[in-house]
């Protein structure tokens, strides 16, 4: 009797404390492994920095895409599994325009608009890059944002709005349908091949020598950093200073209350798709610029990382999504120090699962959805 009571009490208390202890122990081991590796020269300082840089940039993309997912997750109350394919759609629309602008006159328009489907044109041959064709890149990026906004609004109008009052699960299942339809329409139009998009050799880069090796930064890294940080600041200002931002925050806290207090919810929902969709499309475009390849699965493969970031940061929190994105990016890239490289993404998922199990409200924000 006494045992079962003690057990029951212990089990209830077992929420936070042991979790903190285990996390602490793991962290200690990770740090020890790294320090010991650095001291003995088994791990190179320059490599660690390269991983961290890579992880930071990856994290910015994940965070940028995560802002939209986090907003719709909390305001519309469902996990949008088609978000990854909004990323892909944005990337393809933007890159179609970039190809067109960079390659006009050099190749036929159809091939350019199809982003070189079937190997008809190569991005490298068109000399695409932020320094070699800045206008094409900037316009492409803006189009990527605009196209994703259009797509998000269109889908919301015809798919999500009619079932706005259904449960989050019904909407989630519907979003899987949207994801399938979008992804394979993209395949139908653009094909399945993964194409190189930038002229990798022509991207200016600087190389530092750092203690035990070199550390490289290229112009696309910097472009991504500037665009991502700029947009994040923009969102911050939007939410803090405008009436719209206030309404959005109110709605993500409690939609019913917001409705009662007279916040025009449909308008806020539209604004959410516009802001979230735009950022998502640009994130997709920048992702492709940064990594230099484009394929129909890019967004879908990124989606679970974006979910990881959003959950880590606490659903509904925009700053959480950004911070979560960076943590997830760093996890995916830097985990190769400790585990085989093919488990980078697995490590990020693992972190997400652990957070969901032990701290589902996220680690950066106490706020949860209702």
């Amino acid at each position: 009797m006494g045992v079962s009571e003690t057990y029951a009490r212990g089990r209830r208390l077992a929420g936070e404390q042991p979790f903190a202890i285990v996390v602490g122990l793991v962290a200690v081991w990770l740090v020890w492994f790294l320090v010991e590796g650095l001291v003995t020269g088994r791990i190179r300082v320059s490599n660690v920095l390269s991983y961290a840089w890579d992880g930071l940039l990856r994290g910015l993309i994940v965070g940028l895409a995560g802002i939209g997912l986090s907003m719709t997750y909390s305001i519309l109350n469902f996990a949008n599994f088609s978000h990854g394919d909004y990323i892909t759609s944005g990337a393809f629309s933007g890159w179609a325009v970039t190809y067109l602008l960079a390659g006009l006159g050099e190749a036929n328009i159809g091939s350019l608009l199809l982003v070189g489907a079937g190997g008809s044109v190569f991005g490298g041959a068109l000399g695409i890059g932020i320094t070699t064709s800045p206008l094409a890149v900037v316009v492409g990026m803006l189009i990527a944002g605009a196209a994703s906004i259009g797509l998000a609004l269109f889908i919301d109008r015809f798919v999500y709005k009619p079932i706005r009052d259904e449960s989050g699960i019904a909407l989630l299942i519907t979003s899987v349908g949207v994801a399938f339809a979008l992804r394979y329409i993209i395949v139908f139009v653009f094909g399945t091949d993964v194409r190189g998009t930038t002229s990798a050799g022509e991207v200016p880069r600087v190389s530092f020598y750092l203690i035990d090796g070199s550390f490289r930064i290229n112009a696309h890294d910097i472009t991504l950093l500037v665009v991502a940080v700029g947009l994040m600041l923009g969102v911050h200002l939007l939410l803090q200073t405008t009436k719209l931002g206030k309404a959005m925050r109110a709605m993500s806290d409690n939609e019913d209350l917001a409705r009662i207090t007279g916040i025009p919810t449909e308008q806020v929902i539209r604004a959410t798709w516009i802001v979230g969709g735009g950022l998502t499309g640009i994130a997709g475009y920048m992702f492709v610029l940064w990594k230099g390849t484009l394929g129909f699965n890019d967004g879908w493969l990124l989606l679970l990382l974006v979910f990881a970031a959003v959950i880590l940061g606490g659903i509904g929190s925009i700053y959480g999504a950004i911070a979560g994105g960076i943590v997830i990016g760093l996890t995916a890239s830097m985990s190769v120090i400790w585990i085989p490289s093919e488990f980078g993404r697995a490590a990020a998922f693992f972190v997400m699962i652990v957070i969901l199990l032990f701290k589902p409200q996220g680690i950066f924000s106490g706020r949860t959805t209702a």
Partner: protein
Amino acid sequence: MTETTLYDRFERVIDTDPKLVVAVLAVIYLAYIASGVAFGYSLRGQLNSLANLTFYIGVFGMLALALNLHWGYTGLFNIGIVGFMGIGVYVTAILAKPPVAQGGAAQVGGFGLPLGIAVIGGVFMAAFFGLLVGLPALRLRADYLAIVTIAFSEIVRFTMMSRTFQEFTVPDTVLGYDLAADTVGLGGGGGLILNYASPLEALLHALYLWEPYLGFVSFVQANLIANNPRPVVDGVVYGLLLLAVCGLYYWLLTWTGESPFGRVLKAIREDEDVANALGKDTNRFKLKSFVLGCALMGFGGILWYAGRGSITPPSFRPNITFFVWIALIIGGAGSNTGSFLGGAVFAALLYEGPRYIKNLIEVAFNLGDGPGNFGQAMAALGSLDPVPFVLYTLNSISELRLVIMGVVLIWLMHNRPEGMLGHRKETAASIDLSRPGGAKSDAAAADGGDQQ
């Protein structure tokens, strides 16, 4: 009294569900046969396509039934189905593969166990991983459980692909046992070659039916298909075997559902707190339901893939999981009959249908090669020549069918979220619940409806 109730129940069941199942299957098969005849398929072609159709009806029916236990009965949102399938097949393969590496230096060996034992091992491991995931994750709310399970299934796939687990050398003896295996592993990105006897052959041997079976094949050769009939007959028989397994799943899950156990699962789906307040240890029930479903998914995975020549990690992408979900939603979550029918309709119309139509059209009209990409197709369409566009569409049919699936799923969620069969009353009890000894007052029962 029990005698009559049992008989009544039997009669009632025969009256509705099996008739429905037979009717739907009949329509599907007749449509396939009729169009095959219309387009001039040979007998061999007909049988092959029917075997293929039966195979997918079987596997999707099975998996939809297993998912129905999770989602329809218990309300557990599992989108990691393919992970459990993969575990089942991979473990089966490793246990059954012959110890000596064959098929090139890159191939790893296995433990060389009889296939039957290997299959049990595979199912057991799928169940074990179900336990491992379920133990911490089942207390999460539905959308979080969804994300955990899909992340799990992706981790499974990464593990299959990884170089780290590609190959291990097995020590000669473990705890005094001399193991046959030299190297084992998951085979990395190249996957595993399944170089053991085909499951059908193993099963027929075990049942002492192998000789009669070969006799039957000779009979077919003499009378129906003169040239190499084995693959055709194998396909048809394996398909029928899958349907029989579907029957077993159906029976097992119906008994599971129509029992006090199933009643608690249903109560958990409706409101877990209430089930708790009535003294049910809901966590245990959820875990049992999850583990059983995972085992059935593992077995489904084995039956799907273990008979192939090889398995590779890309087969275990989350798409398969969503196929099963679409099948379940077509049929209607909560009903076993609906689940199986959903699997059958999904397999026939959405999964195989478009490819079948494409094959038919190709056989019927010799259209030649289509354009290589969308641009050429559109360009031709622009100059008022629709043929290249049609050809391009036909050639892209395996991608387009996923678009169709997506649209169908959206349509269903908008218009018929309860599925094809609609709302069904499948009482969760092992016995007929009407008043023992007959109705007390029919008049009273009649006014029940308008009390709302």
